[in-house]
């Protein structure tokens, strides 16, 4: 199947891309209201959107009668498309990065596409107080690793508070008798972050001193480049976004205070299930919140979660998104968004914003994606029903104006894939027979 999809992708890239007009659809722009009309795509961008548009000559017409077009969904917290997620051996693993292990062949990408997702923030796991570097990707299924990176997006880094990072230091935790690792308490988590940023400041000073010496014409041995501390210096300088996994209000306040003290910003609090308790403080720091709709009580620190969390935080002035943290949930983030209307009474547009423009703003890519506006990337999902209905299915997904998912095509290709699989199984059986029983060594 993979190769079939790949070859289709290749052929669609090679053809000179004509303009595309999605016509007579209900268009949910998220930022500019909802209208019935057209969206025009050319050279990967939205060049026109409105009730009446001019279509370029030779444009391919997609009939949108009865369909709903929305901006491609953005997931601010995902762990798909990577060959490793956690560097759990150390408390500060900022030397590692998802970009090094991106796996564009992960089938979860295609499945998320089928749920209307076009952009995702691929995060390091939550095993460490300070985790690894994160990468924002576009779900360009069929492309090589380098080509799925969201070009120009600011890089991120994962922090984690609470149970996960302290578990590795707990003799009764999941690594009984294993190599115990500091910290074992929430206090220790704070200490690790403080120490790391103290080191990062010293490291920055070391380089500044060296550069000053060189500028004066002195001879000096340069400091050793430290891949662990470099990303933290970037955080201090506002060049890298912090995405912090957290649950409890006390640890949330702790992190905000540490960040204020060291003079850096937390870009998003992830999960942040008790965010509703400290919404004012989060808003004051300027952190965004990326939470679940109604996942609850799956561990001690998640016990105080409420489904009203997203709505309450939004009403307190926090930039709120809903994320998946799961390859499965990622496929129906539109359903998750719809829940905020039931729990908290968000409007349709507010609900949609939690999976489009808000995560785009959190990732600082809202100049490119997150809404249907002229000049933005043509990242669009076409649904057969209103996307906030849980009967809705994704029919087509465009990224940069290219069709990456087409439900009809997917369905029509399934018998072919079945056939291909059958013939490959026959071939393999043949091969095993040829090799004979003695060919298998007991290794």
């Amino acid at each position, binding site marked *: 199947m993979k190769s079939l999809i790949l070859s289709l992708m290749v052929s669609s890239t090679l053809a000179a891309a004509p303009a595309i007009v999605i016509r007579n659809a209900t268009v949910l722009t998220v930022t500019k209201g909802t209208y019935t009309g057209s969206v025009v795509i050319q050279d990967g961008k939205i060049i026109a959107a409105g009730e009446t548009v001019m279509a370029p000559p030779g444009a391919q017409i997609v009939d949108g009668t009865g369909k709903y077009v929305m901006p491609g969904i953005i997931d601010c917290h995902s762990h798909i498309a990577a060959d490793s997620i956690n560097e759990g051996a150390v408390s500060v693993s900022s030397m590692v990065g998802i970009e090094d292990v991106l796996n564009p062949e992960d089938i979860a990408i295609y499945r998320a596409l089928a749920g209307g997702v076009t952009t995702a923030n691929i995060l390091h796991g939550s095993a460490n107080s300070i985790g690894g570097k994160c990468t924002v990707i576009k779900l360009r299924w069929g492309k090589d690793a380098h080509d799925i990176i969201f070009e120009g997006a600011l890089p991120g880094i994962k922090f984690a508070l609470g149970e996960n990072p302290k578990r590795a230091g707990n003799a009764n935790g999941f690594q009984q008798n294993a190599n115990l690792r500091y910290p074992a308490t929430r206090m220790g988590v704070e200490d690790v972050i403080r120490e790391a940023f103290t080191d990062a400041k010293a490291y920055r000073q070391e380089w500044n001193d060296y550069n000053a010496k060189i500028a004066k014409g002195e001879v000096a041995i340069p400091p050793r480049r430290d891949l662990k501390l470099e990303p933290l210096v970037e955080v201090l300088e506002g060049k890298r976004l912090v995405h912090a996994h957290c649950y409890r209000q006390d640890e949330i306040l702790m992190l905000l205070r540490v960040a204020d003290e060291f003079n850096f910003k937390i870009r998003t609090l992830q999960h942040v299930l008790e965010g509703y308790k400290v919404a004012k403080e989060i808003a004051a720091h300027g952190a965004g919140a990326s939470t679940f709709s109604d996942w609850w009580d799956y561990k001690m620190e998640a016990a105080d979660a409420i489904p009203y969390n997203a709505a309450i935080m939004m009403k307190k002035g926090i930039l709120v998104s809903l994320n998946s943290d799961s390859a499965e949930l990622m496929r129906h983030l539109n359903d998750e968004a719809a829940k905020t209307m039931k729990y908290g009474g968000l409007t349709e547009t507010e609900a949609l914003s939690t999976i489009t423009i808000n995560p785009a703003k959190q990732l600082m890519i809202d100049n490119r994606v997150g809404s249907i506006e002229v000049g933005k990337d043509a990242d669009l999902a076409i649904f057969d029903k209103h996307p906030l209905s849980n009967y809705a299915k994704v029919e087509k997904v465009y990224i940069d104006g290219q069709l990456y998912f087409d439900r009809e095509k997917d369905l029509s290709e399934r018998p072919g894939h079945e056939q291909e699989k059958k013939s*490959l199984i026959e071939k393999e059986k043949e091969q095993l027979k040829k090799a004979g029983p003695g060919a298998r060594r007991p290794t």
Partner: protein
Amino acid sequence: MKRLLCLFAVVCSAWAEVPTAIAIHNARIIPVSGPAIERGTVVLRNGLIESVGANVNPPADAWIIEAEGLTVYPGLIDGLSSVGIPEAAPAAPAGGAGAAGRAAAAPAAVATTPAKGPEDRPNTTSWLRAADLVKLTDSRIESVRSDGFTTTVTFPMTGIFAGQGAVIDLSGDRPGKMVVAEPVGQYITLSSSGFGGGFPGSLMGTIAYIRQVYLDADHYTKARELYASHKGLPRPEYDRAIEGVLASPRILLPASRRVDVDRMIRFAAELKQPVILYGVPEGYHSADLLKKAGTPVLVNLKWPEKPAESDPDDFGVLQSLEVHAKAPSTPAVLAKNGVKFAFYSGGITKRADLLKAIKRATDAGLSTDDALRAMTLAPAEIFGVADRVGSIEPGKIANLVVTKGDLFDEKTKVQFVFVDGMKYEPVPEPAVPGNRGAGERPTPSEGVQQ
């Protein structure tokens, strides 16, 4: 004396004789570097090839082998191996890939306390040199030589930076005499300790570690230069891990899928290291990347297949089926695209299995000429020793395999093997599999993914 020699030959099942000059007369000669010579002579003298051709006459002082009906090939080269390092041999024939044996190959180097970061140089023995580790006591030497291999590119294979390889000839009376060239590269795996072990515990941790080591190597070099040329600077620390890395002319990185090929080509470019990728079962759809980067490849002849322990009715997902079916087409695709590649035996122990594996590659479109090249001249070129081994040309080392019939025909018997001009007769295949030599050749780790 003669009798003693005979007795020796019986005991060892191999008889090495040392005349100064030997002429293999009236043989079919496949030089690899040029067209086949249907009837000609190869003259060996003092361990080197003196002359080869249709019109070469045996010198008066040469011992003559009347080779009517025999074919002479360059000695085969196993492009990636641990043969020659006895500790790397599996402890027992049924002992799997010989993890225990390989761990023993670098006992002192692996830290006993888990590493806390890159500065602890985890799983690093970059300073180890295969040339220092090879011994004639590795019983695998005789068994692979009997299959026509005269040369292996042998590496320490334990750890992330495992150590430096050497091209060795499977002959000689002292280990130092085996070494043709060294160091020929640093063998790198992407292994990690997983959760609960030391750093690195993940693939991305291993990659970050390797990157830090090369940054440290740059710093080390610069600091030493400054220290040497200026008084009053702090004394740089000696670091054997960096010394080993700096001494390596190229690196070997594992790659299975297209994504690995892409990742490792970019990584090597970032590290500014000449690179050889090894494994590469999915080279059939990575040739464009390899060609563009000009990256040579060592292809594992042990083609991926359905795991033996798996449910006989479960053939897995389409993707793995596709890999099983298409992997043997990798060499043909690489050859068509002009990607330089060589073969390695990758844990295949029996000549029959090796020939079957090669046949799958030729059935998938690889010419037998290219298959032969991938086991002779190509690995020699990849490791920069083509001026000495890999083909039958005057001045090259007298490494030859002489067969009755086509080398790739299962029924063909290896008649004798010359290594450094020494003639060896193959030991017979044992009746019970696994009893010959030390059993299985270990498989190089493909770099554990996770």
